[in-house]
């Protein structure tokens, strides 16, 4: 695994903030009133059944979403376009992998607010 990832830079869709003994994970909140979707100049970001997802094909990587997301949860990538947590709807895990993999059960997946 480590060997396979050699020289590949991973741009995580989740941001870990850590100072001393405080640490927490920040990922897209899938806001009901999403500023990123409203601000997207190309129409690449949209909200579908509660999940805010990105159409990489339409994104021109202007980073307007990076400018507006109050959580800092939309990330620039090496390839140019942006990426964000899409609740693992585009990969094979089916459920958010960060939730499944967190050994301390500190990340939960549930509807709130």
């Amino acid at each position: 695994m480590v060997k396979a990832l050699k020289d590949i830079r991973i741009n995580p869709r989740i941001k870990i903030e850590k100072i001393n003994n405080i640490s927490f994970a920040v990922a897209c909140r899938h806001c009901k009133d999403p500023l990123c979707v409203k601000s997207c100049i190309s129409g690449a970001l949209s909200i579908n059944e509660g999940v805010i997802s990105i159409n990489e094909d339409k994104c021109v990587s202007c980073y307007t979403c990076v400018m507006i997301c109050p959580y800092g949860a939309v990330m620039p990538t090496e390839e140019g376009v942006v990426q964000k947590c899409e609740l693992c709807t585009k990969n094979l895990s089916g459920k958010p992998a960060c939730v499944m993999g967190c050994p301390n059960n500190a990340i939960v997946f549930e509807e709130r607010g």
Partner: protein
Amino acid sequence: MKYVIIGNSAAAVGCVEGIRSIDKGGEIIIISKESQHTYSRPLISYYLEGKTDLEKIKYRPDSFYIDNKVEVMTGREADTIDIKKKIVRLSDAEQIGYDKLLIATGSSPFVPAIKGLEDVRNKFTFMSLNDALQLEKSINESSRVLIIGAGLIGLKCAEGVFKRVNSVTVVDMADRILPNVLDNESAKMVQCWLEKKGMQFRLNDSVAQFNENSALLDSGETVEFDIAVIAIGVRPNTKLFSDFNSSAKYGILTDEMQRTEVDDIYAAGDCTVSFDISTGKIRTLALLPNAYMQGECAGINMAGGNKPYRNAIPMNSTKLFGLPIITAGSYEGEAFIDCGEGFYKKLVSKDNLLKGFILIGNVERAGIYTSLIREQVPLDSIDYGLIKEKPQLMAFSKTERIKKLGGI
């Protein structure tokens, strides 16, 4: 209920989506001067650059009008509004009645009177898809392009055509590029980056006189060109409204519900003026996110909802030849600057609030800064030291973090 929207860009789309979030059945008519499906205006430079195409430039999917039950009248122009009869008259004399009307007529390029400009055959503005398509037809690999205006429109146009032409020279009377969004130091940095890519600048200078293929500058220099692009700025399209109301001097004035002074007429987008909370002043904010959010609020309120639009600020994000630039707010106040090879950061605070910032190079999580300005978060309620270091939620109190991240 019958809603009529004049315009077919971001504010109009926001209005449709706002109306439909409340009223699923009311009749919506869009009157659009342009003939295309709604497209993203800021993407026209990306089109020239080859980063989008005529399909992908569409701001909403092909099914947008059908999905939202909108009757769209393209290639039609609203001529006058009869506010007593509540009728929009089109230039072809057709009349369309409304119960609620949105004016979302946008802005137009400002073209100053420059001596000899009428003799220039290949001159363009850069605002609409048609502008971009016409410019595209005229350029070739030997074209020398002269752009008047080093603002965002001028520089994005420059980037858009750069690889397809022989040379690009940008003239601006200001002493720096992007004079409305950058300070001297960051402007120098970006200019240096663009010059390395091969772009040429003539700053502190303007065109005194055009001849067919040359421009005589105030400095005495003559610049030869094949194509001229005028990108000095935009002016709000207020005429429809000014015909019966005198308040729209620099743009249509609305309240925070996007209502104009006239009953049942709302306005949104580039044709309006906004209250900029970073300066406390009323000004034009010709920005796509602002247009969408104003339009959406207008739509919700037109349909009987109650949504004020309160936290408008100037904010821009772009990349120039791969260099990311994000700026927001105003730069009057106490500055904190951090810079180095390939990056620049300026945070400006005043009265215990973050008022503005400039980020170049590293723009990751800039939205945390933007939200501090838009939400007017008192700086003594957060750890401003951590915020200066980088945008991070760690700077907020534990209670605030739980609220933000825990949804409780």
